[in-house]
């Protein structure tokens, strides 16, 4: 599939060692404009190191990184970073700045007009469910963990950077908060057009958010591809085993109604049951309270079709 646009991020042959211990070994990849790449892997696999190389918080020992075709070493690190949103697990809000001031940090560094900064802050806080009237003047310690991470997200997006880097952004949150923020994150208009690189060790999160996943182990790429490729066409035994624990859940989230009802050309007239709807979401809709738009299939049909679709994927891979 030829790319119409050149990649926004191009990393080639990156290498990094701390002392005698190599944490990133010969890693090359590209990220296209608007794409979300998830760096996935067990602790210590080098995914965070890799992310921090992109904004030069860590300098590689070898290899090059180009952003929009320009080597990052040719730019001052501060200027480079101001063009990339950055969110970390511990959030790292400036504790002596209010919520609004935290959001305004980068636009101020870039010299944006105060009125524009204020307007942008209001929009972002509103969209992230932090009504500015109530929250703009608060200090970070007055917020819950989930609210703090929303502010962290708003701060990363404030200057509308084309690239956003996220290092385990939801890792410190409890499961319920994590799920809800992740949903907001996925549905955030601000992020739609952005090139996103996100680090996580949470497989479900990776499948939910990624256009493509880079699975890393011991500093090396094990497989780089779409969630579907990693799940149904694992490149190695490591990749296969990595998803073992959550395989069924991942399969439910990966296969769509389009895959399941491929042969009988089912019509999907309603919004909630489209060809792109995952089996997981369709199941949710079927098991919930009876919904007004009646589904055009029963649960038995859905599961039977799901089984058949799985079989097709397996066969295709083994062949």
């Amino acid at each position, binding site marked *: 599939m030829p790319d119409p646009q050149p990649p926004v991020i191009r990393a080639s042959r990156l290498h990094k060692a701390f002392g005698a211990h190599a944490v990133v070994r010969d890693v090359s990849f590209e990220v296209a404009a608007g794409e979300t790449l998830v760096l996935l892997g067990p602790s210590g696999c080098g995914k965070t190191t890799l992310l921090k190389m992109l*904004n030069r*918080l860590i300098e590689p020992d070898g290899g090059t990184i180009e952003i929009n075709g320009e080597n990052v070493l040719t730019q001052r690190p*501060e*200027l*480079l*970073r*101001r*063009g990339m949103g*950055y969110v*970390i697990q*511990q*959030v*790292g*809000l*400036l*504790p*002596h700045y209010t919520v609004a001031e935290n959001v305004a*940090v*980068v636009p101020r*560094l870039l010299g944006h007009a105060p009125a524009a900064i204020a307007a942008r802050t209001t929009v972002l806080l509103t969209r992230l469910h932090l009504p500015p009237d109530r929250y703009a003047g608060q200090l970070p310690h007055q917020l819950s963990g989930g609210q703090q991470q929303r502010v*962290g997200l708003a*701060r*990363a997006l404030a200057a509308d950077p084309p690239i956003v*880097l996220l290092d385990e952004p939801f890792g410190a949150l409890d499961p319920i908060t994590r799920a809800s923020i992740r949903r907001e994150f996925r549905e955030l208009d601000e992020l739609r057009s952005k090139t996103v690189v996100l680090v996580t060790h949470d497989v479900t999160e990776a499948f939910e958010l990624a256009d493509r996943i880079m699975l890393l182990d011991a500093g090396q790429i094990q497989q780089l591809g779409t969630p579907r490729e990693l799940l149904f066409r694992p490149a190695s035994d490591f990749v296969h085993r990595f998803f073992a624990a959550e395989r069924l859940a991942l399969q439910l989230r990966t296969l769509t109604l389009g895959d399941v009802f491929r042969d009988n050309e089912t019509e999907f007239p309603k919004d909630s049951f489209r060809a792109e709807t995952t089996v997981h979401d369709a199941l949710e809709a079927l098991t919930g309270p009876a919904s007004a738009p009646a589904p055009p299939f029963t649960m038995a049909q859905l599961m039977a079709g799901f089984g058949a679709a799985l079989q097709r994927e397996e066969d295709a891979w083994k062949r």
Partner: protein
Amino acid sequence: METLSALLTFWHEQAGKLGEQTLQHIGLTAGSLLLGVLLGVPLGLFLSRKPRWAPAVLGVAGVLQTVPSIALLGFLIPLMGIGPKPAIFALFLYSLLPIIRNTLEGIRGVPPAVVEAARGLGLTDGQVLRRVELPLALPVLMAGIRTATVINVGVATLAAYVAAGGLGEFIFGGIALNNPVMILAGALPAAGLALAFDALLGGVQKLSTRRLGQVGAALLVALPLLGGLYLLPRATGRLLAGFSPEFVGRADGLPGLTKSYGLTHLPSVVLAPALVYEAARNANVDVIDGYSTDGRIRAYGLRVLRDDRRVFPPYYAVPVVRPALLREHPELTAVLAKLDNQISDSVMTDLNYRADYLHQPPKAIAEAFLRRRGLWLAPRPAVAGAPVVKLGSKIFAEQYILAEMYAALIRGNTDLAVETKTGLGGTTICFEALRDGAIDMYPEYTGTGLLVLLQPQPAVVDSLGGQPAAVLNYVRAEFRRRFGLEWLAPLGFNNTYALLMRGQQAQQLGIVSVSDLGGYLRR
């Protein structure tokens, strides 16, 4: 109540001095603190970037902190002379440890995530320092500065020992004179200053973090101004005097002198007794108080100005003993009497010269003297369980030498054991030790016994008229009656107060007596 009214009276009478000393005190504290902040904060920041150096630097600052303040001043005087320079420098050294350490700890206490996020957002290293690390470290940093301030207000009292002024002048004068009111007169304002400084900085600390930066900048401006208080013009004159605290306060010292000779145009600074001679020799000051038998008079070419109006009372050296000692060991009476009238002024000056200038040990000086006079007997072999005679002395060479003479005589002539407790500080410490029985005997001076220990009504002092025999008779009778202590026979020399000048300068100005000095100053 009595103390309080005495205190208020003292302050009222000395209001001018109190104000001057308070301003000097603030100046010393603020000046040294400014230097401490200017060096300590950058050093702390440096250490936060290069933690490898931290143990070494903090170690050195910690060692500086443990050097006793008097000793530190002692080291600094040969390098920096007397006056505010060594005082401010010493205070500066003391303020370093808390400031460096708290700066370092403050920066270390900033959550790494906050710094990482700030860098990740595109703040430069300088912006991270100014906008993130310093504001967040400021509460801890300020706590360090507060600690340094309180330490410095306290230690600044010692500045009075090196002619740098401050509230220590009252305090050390009061200690030297055993005058609690005078001590309080200096100590209370000093404590008040410490509290005020601490409260002020505490108030600064409570301000919101963002305004701390502005206030910190304001402090950097204010401290030099406060430090400048020190430079307010002080009285100047044709000659500058340097006096020990005791001399400034006691009735037969500067006050008596000023009254009798009209020394009104003689500005003076206060100095540690140990430093006045050096100060005169180095021409830091022109006129000092001293003792007429001091060895340094000879060593430094100083001249004793004749006390032609007999203001200084006679200070004949006499051993004072607990009568029980002589009752229990009657043989001691004859032994102690061997030194009666054996030591003249010039002999004592020479002995002191050997100690102060030639740095011979007091014991060797005492032995050589006894040999010359044919009084030396080798110590008898120690007898197990022999009773111990405890000899005391004040903290200067003459007293050490006298104590060693008596120790040698007792060891050579009796089977008694001797323990010398030398260096018991000032008059009152020796006197109290004798009353308590901590010592059995020490050499005292008639004038000191009269004016410092007995403190009779002025009329009584006047009636004695400065006559040596009359004074001795009076103190002997009064000590017997009031304290049950015995004054033996005088040793011969009169170690009285004296005004001293450099011999060369005195000759140039034609000053021989204190009256000449008064005349020269009024001219």
